[in-house]
């Protein structure tokens, strides 16, 4: 199946207009020796019916777990049916970046609404229209701090999501910045004295996460104070965004940038993407931040309308001097987040409470098992870290029952070998959790 509507007659008539004899003439600029004849290695076309069967067969090779106990940067939440119906409106999803505002008011207004919700949720004044994902958003924030301050060092908490730290490392290296890790304490939180010891005039930013990768809530205010003392900026990430329904956001505790993964807001897990990088900041950085921004303005009759604004920050205008290279972002995921948040409204707090209840239940059930115990003492949201007799065996036992177990910390934190980070959301029923305990007990 191809999707080219031309009939052979169309092609003949168009060739006549162009004065060419064959379609090959159109490719005359490609030096002959480099011209291909066919595409070896690429299979023959499939009809639509065949495509569907083929892809269904592929999807069926996956095992869809009934229960997922891993969070660790991607969260299994219920997505209200409205989200898909609205995001699936063709006018939204078959559009591109709203460069021409008058014909794109729908998306521009929705993004403006999204920005507003995110700024509020994160406790900041401004938010952009999304970056690629939480990890790259954290990296972009850190690079921005480095650029603004012209300082070469970044300090990141070891309790930050390993992927975030790895992406940060990559971006930092490419920009000639160094990254130092600050350890965590027995509570699971950043070691504040250790941080203080690491900070100096060369540090551009401190990057922390709360709840952190272990599920523990950080005390942002003292971290911010300490960070600011040396003139550095605090980039605070979060894990599962639904927690913001009840948790005090980092923006309200002195963070300069709040970043995180927005997948929890109405986007399926999709084996890792597309997700959306939430990027929020203090107002004073408005003209420095990366990414698109929708802004309100008026037309000549004074009617409110929305445009992409402050585009002079962006690559298509400022090129190498742009605040980032980002062009396509995750607009549709941001739209899903916007619809999700508008659908939940204040029920986001109820949802978050339910997540806490479930996590507490699961934690208590598992911590009761012989050889299982909590690793950290700091309170958390819907994730927690448990040490157990044999983490790998536990996960294998769960997998055998079609359950995705906890996140095994061994590879990323050798010092925490034997520990699992587990996550409970509203999708887990008490029955599910009892069953998990049962499986792990026997």
């Amino acid at each position, binding site marked *: 199946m191809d999707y080219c509507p031309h009939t052979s007659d169309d092609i003949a008539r168009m060739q006549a207009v162009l004065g060419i004899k064959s379609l090959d003439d*159109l490719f005359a600029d490609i030096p002959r020796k480099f*011209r291909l004849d066919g595409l070896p290695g*690429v299979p023959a076309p499939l009809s639509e019916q065949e495509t569907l069967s083929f892809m269904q067969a592929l999807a069926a090779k996956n095992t869809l777990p009934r229960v997922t106990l891993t969070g*660790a940067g991607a969260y299994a939440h219920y997505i209200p049916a409205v989200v898909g119906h609205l995001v699936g409106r063709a006018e939204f999803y078959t559009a591109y970046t709203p460069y021409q505002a008058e014909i794109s008011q729908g998306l521009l207004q929705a993004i403006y609404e999204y*920005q507003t919700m995110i700024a509020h949720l994160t406790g900041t004044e401004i938010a952009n229209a999304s970056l690629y994902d939480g990890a790259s958003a954290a990296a972009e924030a850190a690079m921005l701090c480095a650029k603004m301050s012209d300082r070469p060092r970044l300090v990141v908490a070891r309790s930050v999501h390993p992927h975030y730290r790895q992406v940060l490392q990559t971006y930092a290296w490419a920009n000639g910045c160094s990254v130092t890790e600050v350890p965590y304490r027995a509570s699971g939180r950043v070691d504040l004295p250790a941080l203080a010891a690491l900070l100096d005039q060369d540090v551009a930013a401190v990057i922390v996460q709360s709840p952190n990768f272990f599920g523990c809530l950080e005390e942002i205010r003292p971290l911010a104070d300490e960070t600011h003392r040396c003139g550095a900026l605090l980039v605070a990430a979060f894990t599962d965004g639904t927690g913001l329904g009840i948790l005090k956001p980092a923006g309200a505790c002195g963070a300069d940038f709040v970043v995180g993964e927005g997948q929890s807001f109405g986007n399926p897990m999709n084996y890792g993407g597309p997700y959306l990088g939430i990027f929020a900041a203090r107002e004073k950085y408005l003209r420095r931040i990366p990414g698109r921004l929708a802004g309100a303005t008026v037309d000549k009759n004074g009617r409110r309308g929305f445009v992409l*604004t402050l585009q002079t920050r962006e690559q298509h205008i400022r090129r190498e001097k742009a605040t980032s290279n980002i062009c396509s972002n995750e607009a549709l995921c941001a739209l899903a987040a916007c619809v999700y948040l508008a659908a939940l409204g204040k029920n986001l707090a109820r949802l978050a409470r339910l997540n806490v209840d479930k996590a*507490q239940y699961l934690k208590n059930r598992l911590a009761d098992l012989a050889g299982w115990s909590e690793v950290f003492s700091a*309170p958390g949201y819907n994730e927690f870290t448990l040490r157990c007799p044999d983490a790998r065996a536990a996960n294998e036992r769960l997998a055998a029952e079609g359950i995705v177990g906890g996140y095994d910390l061994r590879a990323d934190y050798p010092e925490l070998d034997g520990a699992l980070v587990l996550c409970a959301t509203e999708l887990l029923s008490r029955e599910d959790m009892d069953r998990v305990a049962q499986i792990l007990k026997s």
Partner: protein
Amino acid sequence: MQLIFEISKPGRAAADVPAGDVPAVSLEDVIGASFMREELDLPEVSETDLVRHYTSLSRRNFGVDLGFYPLGSCTMKYNPKINENVAALPGFTGLHPAAPEAFARGNLELLFDMQRLLCAIFGMADFTLQPAAGAHGELTGVMMIRKYFEKKGEKRRRILIPDAAHGTNPASGALCGFETVTLGSNAEGGVDLRRLDALMTEDVAALMLTNPNTLGLFERNIEEVARVVHDRGGLLYGDGANANAFLGKTRPGDLGFDVIQLNLHKTFSTPHGGGGPGSGPVGVGEKLTDFLPVPRIVPCEAGLRWSSDFPDTIGRVRAFYGNFSVIVKAYSYLRSLGAAGLIRAAEMAVLNANYIKEKLKPSFDLPYDRICMHECVFSGSRQVALSGVHTTDIAKRLIDFGYHPPTIYFPLIVAEAIMIEPTETESKETLDAFCDAMAAIAREAEENPQRVKDAPLSTPVGRLDEVLAARKPDVCWSKPKA
């Protein structure tokens, strides 16, 4: 239209939350009051009003499904619906990215086969699917170049970028710590070999070339260009965002490119989502495979698994593995078109662009009058000179004719640029009608320039004040004081 906040009313909600089936804990006890937020100020609306709000918003937006969207450089082809259905299969949507590989056999096979097919189509040794969009792919590619020279112990601080390049190219170079040097184009819109010769010093890590370039022109001297770059120890980076022009016609790997990024959302037809998500795989020649980001998929006894065990990798550029569900759509598209379909797509895309170029020549200035590839670039200079009508005005007027405007004022090297990319999914009738509209606007610009300047006349809002928006930024709504 009102904002969702403006129709909010305390006590309403569109989505509910199940009652608990476990004991409710006290948040004060479990978390502590100091960690709790004070207010949660999200919109409160019923499902009825929520649906009406966003449905109405959608109706104030233009997408490919409504009509012709010849936004140059963005490849707004029609996106087959089957690929949406495929990507929505629960087997693809429901899996956690950290699930053990045994749960993800189908996903791993899909990703691995996608890499293999991209290697075949583009003539590269390997691909990573991790980058989330074209610019992200560029960054990844440039990072690999950096690592390559770091490994070799060569300090090359610069990257050459033609003046016709997309803004993401210099921005990606800069975000990777390179100094970018602009390479002026020659009279026929290609690489100026003499300037290249002069600028391609020992200090230059790479030339970043878009081919076909943003003028829609294929680099005729590609062989010579590649030779110069390579002879001086540099690498040739290819911005493959325009790959739709040459699918099955030539392969960047054969042309001498050491690394390219693709824009799957363009070339492989995934809906652009109002600005994203995209997917920007990066392909490399043998020289660079060691530097690919991790994790990579490797064969193992059970089939395939993820591995991060590549000591020379640049690391990670994103959490997890990329925009998986975008890749599913692209893969489904690729498989349904097959070899024959991809070739036909390229042929028809190029035919359509040349047809438009030919038909609009009488109405608009054509700065580079040669066979173009997938897009053509006109200039609105004649209109400016004759009647003060600018390219923006023409673009806005097109809206009234039912079209999404082309890309305008890009590439920067064409004054008053009008960059038209029709893509292969448009019929001759659509192209003819569009050309008629463009010609009509050209005539109107002469006969009634004010009407063009007042455009658009048919939209819910008139031309918006962008200057005001930038001068007094309002990017976040706040409740009016009571």
